[in-house]
Every structure is written in structure tokens, then in C-alpha cells.
């Protein structure tokens, strides 16, 4: 008898442990480790809607509300942060964005974002270019750029 009881408790403990692990890893997955950033003084209010942010990164929306140009900066296609930003923040697949940019560039209907090689370069560009938007790792957030939250 005691054996059976202990086995039940054992099972229960195991289940509890597993669900805890699942919960924890789930919340880890959901936590966004990349943030959209803009140049200080950009005429945009935070939080920004996901649709509007996607329009900006798809290069469909090209001007801020005051009519000034939006300058979009991204990291290379095969950079993990690019993929994370597309999937977690924009809820798009990186290959969709690439296809959208290619369509604009090679049909004369628009421009592609400027591709930078590192997060350091991204930080410098955003800090020094009026109207600039891009993304950075969350832990790297800096006082030189403004964070744009997504609603």
C-alpha cells in the first residue's frame, strides 16, 4: 500500500515538475528578446500598432506622420536577430519580407531597407540618422536610441 501511494505522489510530483518546466520554457519562448528602436525625436508615439510597424518594415509606409522620410535599417537575412524580429515582433516570416523587398527593388516600385552588418552599426545609424527605425537586442538597449513598443 505505501508503495502505491508513494508512486502516486511520485507521479504527481513528476507531473507538477514537468508542467512547471513547460510553463517556464513557454514563458521563456514568449519573451521577446528584440525591440524596435527609432531615432530620438521621431514623430511616432509608442506603443505602435503591429500593422503599422509591418507596413514600415515591408517598405509600404514610407513617411512619418509629419511627412518626413522613414529610414529603415535591418540586419542581413541570415542574422538570427533578423529572423527573431520578423517572427516575434512583426509576426512575419523572414522570406516574406525578403520577397516583398525584392518585388519593390526589381520592379521600380520602391526601395529596400539598408542592410547593416552588426548591432553596433545599427545602434550608431539609428542614433545618428533622423527618421531612422531598426531593431536591437533587448539587453543592448541604449540611451542613444528610443524604444518603440508594439501593442
Amino acid at each position, binding site marked *: 500500500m505505501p508503495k502505491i501511494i508513494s508512486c502516486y505522489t511520485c507521479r504527481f510530483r513528476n507531473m507538477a515538475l514537468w508542467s512547471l518546466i513547460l510553463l517556464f520554457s513557454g514563458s521563456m519562448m514568449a519573451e521577446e528578446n528584440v525591440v524596435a528602436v527609432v531615432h530620438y525625436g521621431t514623430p511616432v508615439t509608442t506603443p505602435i500598432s503591429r500593422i*503599422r510597424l509591418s507596413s514600415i518594415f515591408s517598405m509600404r509606409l514610407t513617411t512619418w506622420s509629419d511627412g518626413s522620410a522613414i529610414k529603415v535599417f535591418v540586419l542581413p537575412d*541570415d542574422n538570427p536577430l533578423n529572423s527573431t524580429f520578423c517572427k516575434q515582433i512583426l509576426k512575419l*516570416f523572414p522570406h516574406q519580407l525578403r520577397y516583398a523587398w*525584392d518585388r519593390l527593388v526589381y*520592379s*521600380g516600385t520602391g526601395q*529596400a531597407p*539598408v542592410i547593416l552588418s552588426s548591432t553596433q552599426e545599427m545602434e550608431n545609424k539609428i542614433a545618428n540618422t533622423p527618421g531612422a527605425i531598426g531593431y536591437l537586442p533587448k539587453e543592448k538597449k541604449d540611451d542613444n536610441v528610443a524604444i518603440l513598443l508594439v501593442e
Partner: protein
Amino acid sequence: MTMLLFSLWNSPTVTSRRNHPSNCEQWNRPPARKVHVCNFISQVLASKIVLIFCLSLSIPFNCNAFELFDSVQIHGFVSQAMFLSSGNGMFTDNKSNPNFEFTELGINGSWYATPNLRLSMQVLSRRAGRWDNGSPVIDFGLMDYSFNFDSAYRVGIRAGRVRQPYGLYNDTRDVAFTRPSILLPQSIYLEGARDLTISGDGLILYGESTKPWGNLTLELFGGYPRTESINNQFQAVFGYSGVLESNPSFVGRFNYETYNGRLRFALTGAYTTATASKSVPSPNGLVTFAPMIFSAQYTTDKWTLTSEYDFDFFKGENLGLPGFPINPDFNYFGQKYYFQAAYRFNPQWELMARYDAMYPNSHDQSGYQASIKSKGLSPDYSHYAKTMTVGLRWDITPMMMIRAEYNYINGTAWLPVQGVPTGVFGISDNSQTSKYWDLFGLQVSIRF
């Protein structure tokens, strides 16, 4: 990588000149075509210089574009393909294997003069057999003025030489990276009719709306489609020299996609007419082409499922010459469609499979009536084409890609005129083609 590209690049000139005695003979026959050969060689040299320029710029910088100065972007691409065919030659009627006569090279620039006004131009050098000889042309050159209302609506106008809004792939049909395969599904994106649908001189009015339930885009084109290389096909098709001049034509495309872009629908309608001016005293002919295309695409992380269906009206009036034994006039209701699945089993690798069917005259799908009317010059199988394609693509880097594909084809409806041997009266003789044929292709492409 540079060496590989140059070895591939160098081979076409050597191979095409060595293996195509019949082509050279054809060029040498009329004196005017000798100039053509000289031009061709100098153009190939010119394209090489452009390629070297592109490579020398792009490789050290290792980035996808150049910002010369603020708001100016320069982009480009170059692709070289190789084909092996068991039956008909895609770009030449003597089916030389391997065939390297498919090269695409383009460079474009875009400049935001103001946040709303953009100027853009692309120069394209395309080698695709006898008539597309690589001479650089202005592919598009336009002024684009657009205006955003409260970030959800955008309206604009593009003027100049603009891309015609046609189906899913026409906008970037010369850029290998944006195509699902080396050759686009030929039923809808017919190689022989490329000039008429690619770009035109005129205007595009467009409007876009972005809402939580999706994006709507409407584009309306009015202007003159290009006919440059089609003119060269004239003699081969109709047996006399002439010029095809486009009349004012209209194309409209309505596009809907869900907010996340996973589902996309497009509806294209076009009305294109061209006058066939003959060099002999007889009335001018008229060609009318009016397609309606339904397009659908569904995308997930790994899959892209695509299908397009085309129903078109294609009519040729008064094209023959008096006393000529065969009347080339036609009046077709065509039906064309394809189903395509692409599977990205890894971010750098993609498998593709497609079934493509083309019936230029849906009232005569077997081609029986047409073959009787042509007195055997065009057999029944030249009036349909059913194509099965499988392909594999490898994106080595975001800038460089190679792919291979295999096509199994029943029928020759989409075989370009240049792939059809010349018979009596100097016109294309479809009876000398193969009904069943295999086409294997390899392609390497670079973009920046």
C-alpha cells in the same frame, strides 16, 4: 566563387559560336544580320565589363545594396543558366546540348528626390536565344509620386516606362531570386510573349489600403507595351517581314493579402492590341490579346502553395498575304493554369514541384482541328503543352543562389519560335519538333 562565375560566364560565347553552325549561317544569309553578329559580340563583352564592375563592388562590401549618398540605392543581379534537352531546343532550333544561351543581367538605381517623389531606372541585358541578344535596354525608367494618408491609405502615380501589373511573377520576372524556377510557368508567363507583357510606356495609377483585415492594392496601367524582340519573330511566324506596333493598351490588377501576408489573391485583367504593319502592299493585320488571370498563394514558414488560372481571348486578323496557301488568322479562347508547391526544408534549401497546362484554344484542346487547318505544318501537339517540373534551390548566401530543375513536357505550345526549325516558305515548321521532351536546367545567380 568569382572563378566559378567567370568559367560559367566564359563558356556561352565559346559554346554558342562553336556548336551552332546553323545559327551562324542564318545570321550570315541577309547582309543586315552580319551587323547583328558584331553587335552581339560587343554586347557580350559589354555585359562582362558590367559584371566585373558589379562583382568588384559587391564582394568586398558584403552588403546587399549601395547607398551612394542619402536616399539613393543601387541594386543588381546576374544569372547564367545551362540547359540540356532531349527533344526541342528552348533557345535555338538545333537543340545543342548543353545550351548556355540564357543570361540575365540587370542594374537599377532608385532615388528619393523628396519623401514622396522617387525616380527609378533599370537597365537589362538579356540573352535568350536568337533574338534576345543581350543588347542593353531600359527595362523601366519612371517617376513615382505617392502620398500616405494617416498611415492606412496610400495613392500614387508612376509615369514613364513602367512594369505592367500582371499576375504574381511578372513584376520581377527577370530576377532569378524571385522566381520559383529557372523558367517561369510558361502557360501564364509565355517566353514568346514576354515583351508585350513586361513593361510599357505610359502611366500607372495605384492605391493601397492597410487594415487589420488585410491589404488591398489596385494598380491600373494605360500605355504602349513594348514589341522590340517580337518584331524579330514576325518573319519566322508569318513568312514576311513586318513590324508589330502596340496600340494603347490597358492592364489592371487587384490584389488582396491578409495582414500577415500568408494568403494572397490577385485578379488581373488586360486588353492589349497591336497592329501588324506589313512591308508588302496589303491591309495591316491586328492582334488582340485579352487575358483574365486569377492568382492565389498560401505561405507558411516552410511551404508556399501557388496557383494561377488564365482565361484569355487571343485573336489575329488579316495576318496572311494574298495568295499565300495558309491563312494564319486565328480566334482563340485559351485556358492555362498551374499548381505549384515549394517546400523550404531548411532556410537555405527549397524543393519545388509543379504541374502546368496550356491550351491556347480551349475549344480544340487536342489540336486536331488546328493541325488540319495548317495542312500538317503545325501538328496537333503544337496546340497544347502539359509540363511537370521538379526543382531544387540552394541559397548559398543571401546574395548567391544555385538551382537545378527537370521538366517533362508533352506538347510544344509554349516552345518559343526560335526553338522551332524553319521549313518551307521560310516559316516555322512545327512538324519538325518532338512531342515528348525533357528539359534539364542548372542556374547560378547573384544579386546585390
